[in-house]
């Protein structure tokens, strides 16, 4: 996946400005062939703009786009080996499902028997066998999106761009479609670039993802790495449910960094990051790795702890979240698998510690 000739999409110093607004700020990015790549980030971050720059719907202000190592920055969408799936409204409303799916093939002057076969096959693949004669408005939202997928798949272009393809669907359907998308991508072997602001969606589908915020690339990597081992504070804040503590480096012992949080001090592993005493840094801890601990019980293993007051337990079904207010007023979440029968409940308002293993804390220097 890292070999030079296997790169499907490469973006170098890509920028796009709308007057004073910098929608995309000098982004560098590489996406391997056959990869399912997600662009994740908050609304207005520049994901759509980046995707459209890759697809050729917008001209870059600066920088280049390479598809299969070929510069395509000057080419219109129809001359690029990409095809796009839109959020909605993108089916041709005056054509049947069959005609929609076959449109690209007809442009390519493929023989009509062949078009018929390919379209029928593709409709089967996306689970719309027998819907060929319908008009787009006679389909549900999920079915319409599958027609869009079929319309792109059938062209056998090798890069598929998806801009919030599931945003118009309800939560259940979205989950099903996520799994379906992943399955289809593996079956067809195309490179997918999937824009979403829903992290669950991104985690479900993507092998690799990039976090885009404020026009810049914040962090890029394997989905599981970004979840378990984020480098940037922003990533920790955006992905998963993390407790974040801001402080200053007070002492450095080899790769253990001591961070002064004001009222208390916490030790954390450096993970190879260079810091010096006095630096402003942050520590993040996933809520499922933080535990609420009675002040009376002494723990069996060494933990980094902070003291606070128990606010409430929120039962969420599978898990229960303990909401704790630290002495400095910051709120912390500790989440564990619900245990309705064995566990004891903590009364609201009691003093309590929140703790985690040293290796579960993550240092962020930016």
């Amino acid at each position: 996946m890292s070999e030079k000739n296997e790169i499907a999409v490469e973006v170098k110093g890509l920028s796009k400005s709308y007057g004073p607004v910098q929608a995309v700020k000098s982004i560098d990015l590489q996406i391997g062939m056959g990869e399912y790549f997600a662009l994740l980030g908050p609304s207005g971050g520049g994901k759509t703009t980046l995707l459209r720059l890759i697809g050729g719907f917008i001209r870059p202000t600066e920088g280049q786009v390479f598809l299969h190592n070929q510069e395509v920055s000057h080419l219109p969408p129809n001359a690029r080996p990409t095809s796009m799936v839109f959020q909605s409204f993108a089916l041709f409303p005056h054509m049947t499902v069959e005609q929609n799916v076959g449109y690209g093939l007809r442009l390519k002057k493929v023989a009509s028997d062949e078009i018929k076969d390919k379209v029928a096959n593709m409709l089967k693949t996306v689970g719309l066998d027998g819907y060929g004669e319908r008009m787009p408005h006679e389909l549900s939202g999920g079915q319409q999106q599958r027609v869009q997928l079929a319309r792109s798949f059938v062209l056998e272009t090798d890069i598929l761009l998806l801009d919030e393809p599931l945003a118009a669907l309800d939560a259940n359907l979205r989950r099903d479609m996520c799994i379906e998308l992943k399955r289809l991508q593996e079956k067809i072997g195309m490179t997918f670039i999937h824009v979403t602001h829903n992290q669950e969606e991104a985690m479900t589908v993507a092998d690799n993802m990039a976090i885009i915020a404020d026009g810049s690339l914040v962090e890029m990597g394997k989905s599981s790495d970004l979840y378990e081992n984020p480098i940037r504070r922003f990533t920790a804040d955006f992905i998963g449910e993390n407790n974040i503590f801001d402080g200053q480096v007070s002492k450095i012992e080899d790769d253990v960094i001591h961070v002064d949080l004001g009222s208390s001090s916490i030790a954390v592993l450096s993970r190879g990051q260079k810091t010096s005493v006095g630096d402003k840094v942050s520590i993040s801890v996933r809520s499922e790795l933080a535990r609420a601990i009675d002040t009376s019980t002494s723990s069996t293993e060494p933990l980094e702890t902070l003291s606070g007051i128990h606010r409430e337990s929120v039962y969420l079904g599978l898990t229960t979240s303990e909401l704790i207010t630290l002495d400095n007023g910051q709120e912390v979440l500790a989440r564990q698998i619900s245990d309705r029968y064995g566990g004891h409940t903590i009364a609201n308002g009691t003093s309590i510690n929140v703790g985690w293993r040293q290796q579960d804390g993550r240092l962020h220097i930016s």
Partner: protein
Amino acid sequence: MNDDYSSKWGYRLKWLYTLLVVTTLMLPVFFVMYISFNENGFGARDYDFTFEWYGLIFSDLLMMEAITSTLNLSAITVIFVVPMGLITAKLYKITQYPLAVISLMLSPLFVPSDILGAALLVFFKNLNGAFTLFGEWVGVSWFDTWFDLGYFSAIVGLIIYTLPYVFVVILITMGRYRKEQTEAARSCGATAWQAFWHVEFPQIKTGVFSSCAFTLILCFNEYTRTSLLKGGFDTFTTVLVSQMLNEGMSEQSYAMSSLVSYIAIAIIGSVIIFTLVRSERLERIARAKAEPLMAS
């Protein structure tokens, strides 16, 4: 869409009102048509059916020429004004300043026809004068007739007159169309022109054809601008009016007036019928296709 509690009489009264208004508006027209078939002409006690007056129109050379030149004027105007309206409607959909576009496009509607006609007349006269002077100065006579009153000036006047209508009619049919559809077509490999022709045009063609019909009728019926700007009384309405003013209403005038109405009604009627029949047929087909799948 009536709810069960609304009065039946309210509904009937609305129908009655509509029919009454339409009848009041159309009655004189129908009356003129009625007279135009009377052998004995206007005010006669006896009614003998005849086509004679219509025959006279077609044997009247002046009249036939007038019809021809009016049709030419209308057709040329359509050829220019419909693409112009289409382009502006497309601009309206993509611009950041839609209010500016719409105000500019609709402004000709607020100028009374005689004022616009007179203003253009003065404009063309002056332009003509200026160009003739320029030609004398350069020493060629080539520029002398560029802005003489004639087809060109009349068509400019008619374009200014009909453009707002064309713009609005096309704009209305653009409602359903989304730019994502064009982008999707582009990403399927279509050029900009193919995307327009395959995806956008089929969705707005009702508007385009309606505006063609509309423009034809507007031009055919137009008197003020045409008479001021064409130079000479040789179009359908100008001939009709000048005959009426000079010779009084002849039986032939009734026939001519009726003829204009027939043409207008025929054009509008066929547009409406075509649109209705087509949309109904599409709906029927769609329902027939959807039903077996719904059941399964």
